[in-house]
């Protein structure tokens, strides 16, 4: 559908929010007492922040929850049974005020979960997701969306994209039918554009991702990985805060006879991620795991999924306890 541009006043935004919040699950960012930015379901509009750079965790959990039940079972030796999950119960979720980097991540996740065979758990959630994005008027030293083919106001992944105007009101780009559906709930809130300029932050480009991908193709054996991952302590923080990391574990949990099989987030940074039962580990040391993380996002995915596995949100770098800065490393890789 063709994009239409409207303008929406700050007060109207509150009306729209309350209207949505009254009838469906709205996932919106708030600033917690400890200054961390977290997403909450249906917080009061007064709590919702428009001034955050990035939330601590990404919002991938709306389509890829940190724990997701796959089915229930009853283990009774000869009479074991399986009970399916009713995926039709998945509710519609409206994402409110997510930044363009996070919104672009959904399509990357889709490329992982639907290549070759379709993962219904993901696609049902993705289907029911409406994204009301918010362009960035703030950024910091960790942001690098412009290096991975995005911009602080790219519309990719949004159904409606809000951008702040000079006068404090917002421009609303209505991009999809889903977005249009939101507009029709209360069309009078959306007014013709006023000609005001949008305020968008500037993010400096740090590397050229195409060149990085080319370089990586022959960089597997490079000393770079060992030299630059010495300080990596092998936690899973980068993968867990990442909006596009989709590796998972499958586990069973039983109480008595009954139990469930679930999948939960996992990270290629963990030493035991690839450990065989025999004791053999294809990725024995941290440098190999760090290489896997970068290679996966910037070399394997462009080739196999036709999408880059990174949106430049900078969470992995800002959340890293030992300052493994991915943008810095990619910049260095580009020049090896």
């Amino acid at each position, binding site marked *: 559908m063709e994009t239409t541009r409207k303008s929406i006043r700050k007060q109207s935004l509150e009306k729209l929010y309350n209207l949505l919040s009254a009838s469906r699950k709205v996932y919106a960012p708030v600033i917690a007492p400890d200054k961390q930015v977290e997403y909450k379901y249906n917080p009061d509009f007064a709590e919702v922040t428009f001034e955050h750079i990035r939330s601590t965790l990404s919002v991938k*959990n*709306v389509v890829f*929850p940190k*724990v997701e*039940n796959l089915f229930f079972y009853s283990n009774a030796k000869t009479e074991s049974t399986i009970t399916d999950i009713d995926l039709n119960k998945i509710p519609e979720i409206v994402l409110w005020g997510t930044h363009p980097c996070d919104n672009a991540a959904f399509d990357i996740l889709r490329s992982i979960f639907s290549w070759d065979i379709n993962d219904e758990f993901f696609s049902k959630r993705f289907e029911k997701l409406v994204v009301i994005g918010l362009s960035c008027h703030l950024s910091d030293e960790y942001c690098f969306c412009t290096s991975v083919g995005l911009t602080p106001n790219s519309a990719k992944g949004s159904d409606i994209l809000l951008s702040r105007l000079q006068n404090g009101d917002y421009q609303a780009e209505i991009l999809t039918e889903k977005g249009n559906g939101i507009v029709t709930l209360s069309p009078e809130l959306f007014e013709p554009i006023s000609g005001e300029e949008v305020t968008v932050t500037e993010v400096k480009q740090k590397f050229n991702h195409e060149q990085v991908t080319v370089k990586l193709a022959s960089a597997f054996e490079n000393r770079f990985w060992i030299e630059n991952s010495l300080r990596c302590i092998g936690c899973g923080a980068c993968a867990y805060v990442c909006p596009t990391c989709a590796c998972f574990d499958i586990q069973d949990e039983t109480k008595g006879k009954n139990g469930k099989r*679930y999948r939960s987030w996992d990270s290629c940074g963990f030493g035991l991620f690839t450990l065989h039962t025999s004791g053999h580990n294809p990725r024995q040391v941290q440098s190999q795991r760090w290489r896997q993380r970068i290679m996966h996002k910037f070399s394997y995915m462009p080739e196999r999924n036709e999408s880059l596995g990174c949106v430049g949100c900078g969470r992995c770098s800002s959340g890293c306890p030992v300052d493994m800065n991915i943008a810095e490393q990619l910049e260095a890789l580009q020049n090896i």
Partner: protein
Amino acid sequence: MSDFEPKVVAFVCNWCTYAGADLTGTSRIKYASNVRIIRFPCTGRIDFMLLLKAFANGADGIIVSGCHPNDCHYTSGNFHAKRRWIMFKELMDFMGIDMNRITFSWVSAAEGAKWADVVNTTVTRIRELGPYVSYKELVNKSVEEEVKNE
């Protein structure tokens, strides 16, 4: 709450308290039937995780009991256990987990009466405290957390 029957799990060592509990029985001393005894080789083997698992699986109270100091079958298992329990108790207190629900005791193989007393006072105390609702809620809430995304 009158029909509340506390579930109490007792983690006991094989050499003293378990034998002591046997003596309670052979001496025909009556004591509360709310207790489920789990026998261990030594108190030193009673991992604190087992206590947490008991609460997670619905216990309202716990008894941990073994040989008196200096009487350990393995010489020093109970001394190690004592240090561990001190730390565990302090940590639990700090996290707000109710330590009134755990009884630590030394019951020798000759103390059949003491065992009955330990069980009875524990069960009475738990009866007064009521079911361990807050821990059960924590466990149930955690199960709900997983399904809330559905």
